[in-house]
């Protein structure tokens, strides 16, 4: 139990998936301009991340390994993720059309969200067991949501202030992210 807890804390803070491992940056700067869309993105990413990791872990260990087709990992994983995202898209369009609209281009792009694919690959590379895979996927998605929502909160405040035109948008978001990363870097000593 302690192991899982430690794993979660490490994945959320010390090795934060966005700020320290640089996975999932596109939605991080893309949908972080308002808190509402940041929340929607977090929920979608959490759902897809856990499901995708679970399914791809099973596909790898029970399908590719017995057939000795490990080199097809990249193709197999991306197909699993792409079909999952399609599913989430259809469900969201039906249940919450407003949210679906505000996520815009970034929902289909969750397919190319490096976090989802990266976590699936990391689970295999670090030889996680099934339960570890689920815990790790959950924790990384929480870390993603945390960083995304904190940045969205900060950027909403920036919208009220006067920012030099050349700095507004991406440059400012990235520098803010840099300072946030510096804070998260302080957790480094915890996990090891």
């Amino acid at each position, binding site marked *: 139990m302690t192991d899982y807890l430690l794993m979660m804390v490490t994945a959320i803070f010390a090795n934060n998936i966005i*700020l*320290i*491992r*640089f*996975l*999932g*940056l*596109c939605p991080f*700067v*893309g949908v972080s301009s308002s808190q509402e869309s940041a929340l929607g993105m977090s929920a979608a990413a959490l759902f897809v991340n856990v499901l995708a990791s679970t399914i791809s872990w099973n596909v790898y260990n029970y399908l590719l390994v017995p057939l000795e087709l490990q*080199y*097809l*990992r*990249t*193709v197999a994983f*991306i*197909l699993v993720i*792409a*079909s999952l995202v399609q599913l989430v898209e259809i469900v969201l369009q039906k249940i919450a059309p407003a949210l679906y609209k505000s996520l815009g281009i970034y929902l*289909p*792009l969750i*397919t*190319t*969200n*490096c976090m*989802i*694919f*990266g976590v699936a*690959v*990391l689970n295999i*590379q670090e030889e996680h067991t099934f339960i570890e895979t689920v815990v790790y996927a959950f924790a990384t998605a929480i870390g993603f949501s945390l960083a995304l929502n904190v940045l969205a909160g900060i950027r909403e405040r920036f919208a009220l202030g006067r920012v030099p035109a*050349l*700095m507004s948008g*991406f*440059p*400012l*978001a*990235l*520098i803010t*992210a*840099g*300072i946030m*990363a*510096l804070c998260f*870097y302080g957790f480094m000593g915890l996990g090891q």
Partner: protein
Amino acid sequence: MARIVQEFTKGLWKEVPPFRFVLGLCPVLAVTSNVQSALGLGCGVIFVLLVSNTLISTFRKLIPPKIRVPVFIVVIASAVTIVELSMEAYFYTLFEVLGIWIPLIVVNCLILGRAEAFARKEPVHLAVADGLGMGLGFTISLCVLASIREIIGAGTWFGMRVMPEAYLGFELFQRPPGAFICLGLLLFFINFLSQKLEKPKAG
């Protein structure tokens, strides 16, 4: 002919990724702590972009629009697998350094973005020019960012010492937080530069 040149050069300045379109950021920050790995990943991206743009543009009339994204992804994933296997066979040290970032080329938004925005509508020769230009622009951007980070962070460039021996290096620039700050400042600088360059034309 002029069109080919135009499609090629737009990737180098006017629409240079990732500075103009903030797409495919993740590897940009992750592999730029030194120039070698930036160049290695850049070459991988050029190859994948070239293969995917060529194939998708060749078969653009055969791919049913409704399932185009899965088709694109399979094409890209196959190209990435080629890069992954050949890098493991011929450039093992680079393969070790880049690690997870090689399979992650598959989810680089830049590649799918080009397929979606360009290759599925345009003929092959233009798609090749576009892929080459964008890939080259991406690689050059990676190398510029990596040079800044390596020189300031470690005082070396391509592993060679460029700063005086006494320079200890500003560690932060080699670490994740420095990557964000450095890219942010670079984007600001590019905005500034393009504003300076475009003003005379507008006036």
